[in-house]
């Protein structure tokens, strides 16, 4: 069990390093899925099987599939990899990496110097989690539901293609332009119709008249 924890940790760290260094975004996404699955293994070893299942189903299953869909939809060509290699050179990442390494070293030092606290890896079953979720943290569940509703509405609003809305005076999209810049062939006559519009509207009107006359005969 101990060895399993360390193996899963090494896999998680290696996969995460691969995520942040890949140039192709699909490769990075697949490494991210590996990282999430190894974290799920760690959750299971920690005695949290419900959260391990959620990690696999929701994180690796739903969220990552959403990422893959979007990356496929963007339809990035092979030139993006070259662009990435231009953006991701050592001059850019060496600074953040050095500073973060200092912070990691400090954190590890602080944790180790405080001595060892053994974990109690008794399994906490989903029943306990659900009981706590819907009694102690009920308000949090309500807030999370509102957050998810806001997410749905926001994603719908952002993903929608904008429909051009015109005042009824400018019902045709190019009417305003024509009124401001009248050309000879586009001159609008006294009925508010262009020369090209006339036959269509005439047939429509005559068709309606015909129908009326038919109705009258009947």
């Amino acid at each position, binding site marked *: 069990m101990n060895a399993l924890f360390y193996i899963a940790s090494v896999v998680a760290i290696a996969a995460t390093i691969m995520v*942040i260094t890949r140039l192709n975004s699909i490769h990075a996404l697949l490494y991210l899925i590996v*990282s999430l699955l190894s974290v799920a293994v760690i959750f299971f070893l920690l005695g949290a099987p419900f959260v391990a299942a959620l990690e696999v189903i929701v994180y690796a299953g739903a*969220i990552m599939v959403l990422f893959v869909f979007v990356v496929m939809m*963007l339809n990035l060509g092979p030139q993006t990899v070259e662009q990435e290699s231009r953006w991701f050179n050592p001059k850019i990442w060496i600074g*953040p990496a050095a500073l973060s390494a200092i912070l990691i070293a400090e954190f590890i030092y602080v944790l180790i110097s405080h001595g060892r606290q*053994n974990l109690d890896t008794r399994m*906490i079953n989903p029943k306990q989690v659900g009981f706590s979720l819907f009694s102690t943290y009920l308000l949090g569940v309500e807030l999370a539901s509102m957050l998810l509703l806001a997410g749905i509405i926001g994603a719908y609003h952002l993903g929608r293609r904008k429909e051009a809305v015109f005042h009824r005076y400018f019902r045709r999209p190019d009417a305003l332009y024509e009124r401001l810049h009248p050309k000879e062939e586009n001159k609008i006559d006294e009925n508010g119709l262009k020369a090209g519009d006339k036959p269509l509207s005439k047939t429509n009107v005559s068709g309606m008249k015909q129908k009326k006359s038919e109705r009258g005969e009947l």
Partner: protein
Amino acid sequence: MTSFSMEHGLILATIIFMLGLIGLLSRKNIVFILMSVEIMLNAAGLAFVVAGSRWSQPDGQVMFIFILAMAAAEVSIALALIILLHRKFKTLDADAAHNMRG
């Protein structure tokens, strides 16, 4: 049962969080930035679950569920924004939207 110490779990969470932070700071592609944010959220959830396991209480797992819901909402909005950015500027460079002229 076995006993790996809480410190090792927290060190793992820190290392994964810092890797996500390095990715966030050094990447220019907005898809990679979003992936780094996901890594950091996942590391925070790991720290919560480790701490909950230390006291053998379900609270850490409840917090992880909240983080999961938050990550799902955030990802849906952020991916819609990425699609909008790509539609408008034809690039995934996060610097393309630096002067918000609407």
